[in-house]
C-alpha cells in the first residue's frame, strides 16, 4: 500500500496556552532510562523521600538487586545548617563509592528541595572530584520539578557531560539522545551503508567513553527534548542538522536523509539504501494502519514526544488529531515537525488538567495518550488510553520500528474490540 499523506500546509491555528495544574512527571524520571544506557554510572538524587518514592513508583525499582540510582534524603538537620548538608553529602558519597567500586561516573541530581534551599551541587561536584580524583568523575544537573518536566532530565544530564567531551575537528555524525542499544546498532549500520563512516552517540554506552565534538561534528537529534544539549553542542562547534525526528517510516527516512545530505551523499545513494526499507516498513505498518485510520486521537502533554508522534499517527496511520498537547513548545527544534502536521491541528502548550479533561470528555476521542495517573479513570469513562511513559522505554526509533510504534497505539483499540462479557 502506497502512502499518500495529506499535504501539510504549515497553517496551524495558534496553540492554546494554558496554565493551571500540570499532570506530568518531573525530570528525575529520566534517570529510569539513563541508568540503563550507562551501566557504569550512578545517579544520586539529592532530595526528599518524595523524590525516592517518585522514582521507585515510576520505575518498579524492586526488580533490581541494587539499582544504579538512589536518593540522598535530606533530613531536618541538613535543612538547619547547609555546611552540615555538604559534609553529610561527602560522607554519603564516600560510603556509596566504597560499596559500589564499579561506578565510574556519579551524577549528583538536583531536586525541588535541593534547589529551594540552594544547595550548590556544582560546588559539591567540584569538591567531590578533588576527593575522589582518578577514581570517579562527579557531575551534576537538575531534575527538579520546579525547573524540568519528565524528559528534560535527559537534556540536563547530557549537558553535564558536554564539557568533558574531547575536542576534535574530525568529520563525524553525532547522534544525541538515548536510543535502545539494538536500535542504535541498526541505525549506525545504516549510516555506514549510506557512506557516513564516523558515527558517535551521546550518551555513550560507557560513561567514560565520551565522543569528541568540534567543527567537523554534524549533530543529529534522536529525541525532540534536547534543546539545551543542542545549544551546548553547537557552542562546541557542532552543526545542527535540521530534520524531523526518527519516528515512523517517513520521519526516520527524512531524518537519515537529512544526515546524508549534510555529508554530501548523493540522493541516489540514499534512495538505494533506504527505499527498500521504506517499502518494507510501509508493508509492516499496513495492518496497524487498518486499526488506527480514521480514529480520533487526543494527546495530553507529558513526554514532549507528542508533536512527532502526532505527525506519525496522522500522516502514516491516518488518525485524526483532536488536540496535541505539549509541556512546552520549542519552535526551533520542532520546526520540521510542525510543517508536517495537517492543517488546522490544534496544539496546546502547558496544562490546566481540569480544563483539558473537560475538553477530552466533550470531544470523546477514540484514544487518549496520557500519564499513568489519568489512564484508568479515562478508561473507566469509556475511552481507550496509551500510557506515555511506555514510549520512552520502548525501542521506537527508526524505519524498522515504525510498525512496533504504531502497534503500541493500536493495541488498546484492538483490546477493547476483543473483550466481550456478553
Amino acid at each position, binding site marked *: 500500500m502506497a502512502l499518500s499523506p495529506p499535504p501539510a500546509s504549515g497553517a496551524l491555528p495558534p496553540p492554546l496556552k494554558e496554565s*493551571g*495544574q*500540570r*499532570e*506530568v*512527571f*518531573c*525530570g*528525575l*524520571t529520566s534517570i529510569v532510562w539513563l541508568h540503563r544506557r550507562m551501566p557504569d554510572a550512578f545517579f544520586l538524587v539529592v*532530595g*526528599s*523521600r*518524595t523524590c*525516592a*518514592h*517518585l522514582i*521507585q*513508583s*515510576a520505575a518498579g*525499582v*524492586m526488580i533490581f538487586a*541494587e*539499582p544504579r*540510582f*538512589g*536518593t*540522598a*534524603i*535530606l*533530613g*531536618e538537620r*541538613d535543612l538547619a545548617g547547609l555546611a552540615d*548538608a555538604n559534609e*553529610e*553529602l561527602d*560522607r*554519603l558519597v564516600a*560510603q*556509596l563509592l566504597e560499596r559500589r567500586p564499579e561506578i565510574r561516573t556519579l551524577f549528583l541530581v538536583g531536586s*525541588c*528541595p535541593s*534547589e*529551594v*534551599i540552594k544547595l550548590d551541587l556544582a560546588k559539591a561536584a567540584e569538591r567531590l572530584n578533588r576527593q575522589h580524583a582518578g577514581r570517579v568523575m562527579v557531575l551534576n544537573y537538575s531534575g*527538579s*520539578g*520546579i*525547573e524540568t*518536566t519528565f524528559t528534560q532530565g535527559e537534556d540536563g544530564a547530557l549537558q553535564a557531560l558536554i564539557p568533558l567531551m574531547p575536542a576534535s575537528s574530525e568529520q563525524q555524525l553525532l547522534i544525541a539522545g538515548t536510543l535502545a542499544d539494538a536500535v542504535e546498532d541498526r541505525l549506525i549500520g545504516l549510516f555506514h551503508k549510506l557512506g557516513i563512516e564516523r558515527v558517535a552517540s551521546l550518551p555513550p554506552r560507557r560513561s567514560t567513553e565520551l565522543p569528541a565534538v568540534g567543527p567537523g561534528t554534524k549533530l543529529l537529534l534522536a529525541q525532540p527534548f534536547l534543546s539545551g544539549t543542542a545549544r551546548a553542542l553547537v557552542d562546541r562547534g557542532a552543526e545542527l542538522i535540521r530534520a524531523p525526528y526518527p519516528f515512523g517510516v517517513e520521519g526516520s527516512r527524512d531524518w537519515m536523509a537529512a544526515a546524508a545530505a549534510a555529508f554530501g551523499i548523493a540522493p541516489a545513494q540514499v534512495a538505494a539504501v533506504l527505499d527498500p526499507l521504506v517499502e518494507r516498513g510501509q508493508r509492516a505498518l499496513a495492518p496497524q494502519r487498518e486499526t488506527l485510520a480514521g480514529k480520533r486521537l487526543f494527546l495530553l502533554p507529558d513526554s514532549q514526544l507528542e508533536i512527532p508522534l502526532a505527525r506519525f499517527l496522522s500522516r502514516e496511520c491516518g488518525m485524526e488529531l483532536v488536540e496535541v498537547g505539549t509541556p512546552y513548545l520549542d519552535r526551533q527544534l520542532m520546526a520540521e515537525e510542525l510543517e508536517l502536521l495537517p492543517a488546522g491541528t490544534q496544539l496546546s502548550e502547558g496544562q490546566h488538567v*481540569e480544563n483539558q479533561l473537560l475538553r477530552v470528555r466533550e470531544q470523546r476521542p477514540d484514544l487518549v495518550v496520557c*500519564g*499513568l*495517573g*489519568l*489512564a*484508568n*479513570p479515562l*478508561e*473507566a469513562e469509556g475511552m481507550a488510553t496509551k500510557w506515555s511513559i511506555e514510549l520512552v522505554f520502548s525501542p521506537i526509533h527508526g524505519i524498522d520500528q515504525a510498525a512496533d510504534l504504531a502497534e503500541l497505539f493500536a493495541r488498546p483499540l484492538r483490546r477493547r474490540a476483543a473483550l466481550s462479557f456478553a
Partner: protein
Amino acid sequence: MELTLWTYEGPPHVGAMRIAASMEGVHYVLHAPQGDTYADLLFTMIERRDKRPPVTYTTFQARDLGGDTAELVKRSIADAVARFEPEALLVGESCTAELIQDQPGALAAGMGFGALPIVNLELPAYSKKENWGAAETFYQLVRTLLKPQLPAPGTPKPDTARWRAEGRRPRVNLLGPSLLGFRCRDDIREITQLLGSYGIDVSVVAPLGARPADLQRIPTADANVCLYPEVAATLCSWLERQFGMACVRTVPIGIGATVAFLREVHSVLGLELPAELQPGVDGVCEAERRSRLPWYSRSVDSTYLTGKRVFVFGDATHAIAAARIASRELGFQVVGLGSYSREMARELRAAAAELGVEPLISDDYLAVEAAIAEAAPELVLGTQMERHSAKRLGIPCAVISTPLHVQDVPARYAPQMGFEGANVIFDSWVHPLMMGLEEHLIGMFRHDFEFVDGHRSHLGDGAPAAPSEPALAPVSAGAAGLIWSPEGEAELAKIPFFVRGKVRKNTETYARERGLAVIDSEALYEAKAHFSRN
C-alpha cells in the same frame, strides 16, 4: 542525610492522600511542584481506581518562586472548592512547599468559605513518613469535624452498655481501613459479617468509603475498633480521652487473635460471652471451627510444617500477627522478626522478645535482605520487597504487608482478618512450601539421579542454588584457612540446601573454636551436636 535506594513508606503527604482518596466528599489541596503528581498513579494503577484521587496540586514552578506563590495557593483552593464542592477540605504542602512557608492552611482559613470544615495539615516531610501522615490526617480531620460535639470537661464517660437501655443492638466503629492498606477492602466485609453474627452492628467504617457526615456519627457508637493501628491509633486514643469512647485494640488476624478480639468486643460492650467463645476443657473454643486453619494445621500432612524456619518482616501490625500465627498456629519456628514501622517499634520488640529473636527495626531493605540471608529461613513472610530478596536467595515467600503492589489487590475475596482471613493465610503461606507428602517422597528418593539439589517441581521460579555457597570442590578452603575434607564436603552436601549455608558456617565457627585444621564428617556431626544443645 540518608542514602535510600528504595523506601517502604512514601512521604507523609501520601499518607494524607490515602485518607482523602479513601473517602467521599473530601478534597485535598496540596501545595507541591509538578512532579509530585506522580502520587496519583499509586491509586489509579496499584489500586486500579477508576477515578483520580481528589487532590488538587498547585504545581508551582521556579518562576513562581520569585513572585507570589501564596496567590497561586489561594487560586488553587478557590478553583478546587468551586469545582469539586467538597464537604470537607484538607489543605497541606509537600516537602518542597514546606520550605517556602506559604502556610496554605492559614490562607484557606482566611478565604471565607463559611461553614466548610477546613483542616490545616502540618506534616513534617523531613522527619515523618507515610503511615504517620495518614494517622495524623485521619485524626486532624475527625477532630475538626467533631469540634462542635466535644463534651464539656468533666462529662462522665458514656456507658458502653447503654445500647441495652436504648433498646437496640450494640454498635461499633471500624477505624483505620484505607486505600493502599493491606487487604482492607475484604477485611471490612469479614469483620462486619463476623460482628453481625454475634448481634453487633458496625456503625461507621472510616476512612474507607466514609463521608465527612459519617465521621460526625463516630461518637454515636458504643465503642471503636482500632483495626489498623498504623492509621487509627492516634485517633482512637483521642476519642478515648475526649469522648470517653472505649477502644478494642486486639487486631483480629489469626485464630487466637480473632477469638481474643471477639472476647474483647463482648467484654467492652458488656455482652455475655457466648458458649462458643468460651474456652473448652482443652483450651479450644468452638468458634475456631468457623475456620479450617486449626484442623488443616493439626492434620497429618501439616506435620512437615513443624519447626520450619520462618523470617517475618512487614508493617508492625501484620508482622506481629504473622509471627504469632507462624509460631503458635502453624508450628513454625520464627527465626527473625522485623518491621519498618518505627512508630510501633516498642510493640514489635515485645513480640520479638516473646519469641526469643532479635528484633529488626529498619527501613533499609538491604539490611533486611542481609538479615534474611543470615537467618537462612525456609520461608519468608514479608513485603513485596522481601519477595524479591527471597527470590534472589532462592527462598519461598508470601506477602503479608504493605507497601502495596498491584498483586496485593486481588480480584477475589481474600481478607487477612477473621476466620476467613485465617483460611486465606493458611493457603497463601503454605502453598509456596512443598506439601507434606511431596516432601516426604522427595526425601525418600532424593539420592535418585532425577532429583537434583533444590528440586521443587511445582515452584515456577526454577531450582535455586543455596545462597553464598561456593561450588563443591574435592577439597575446599573454608573461611579463614579452614579445610574441608572430601568426606566432610560429601556429608555437607547431604544436608538440605536451604540450611546448608548455615550448617557450613556453624561448623566452621565450631572448628575455629576447637582449633581444628580440617573439617571432616566427624567434625560436622560434633558441631551439629554442639549447636543443637543451645
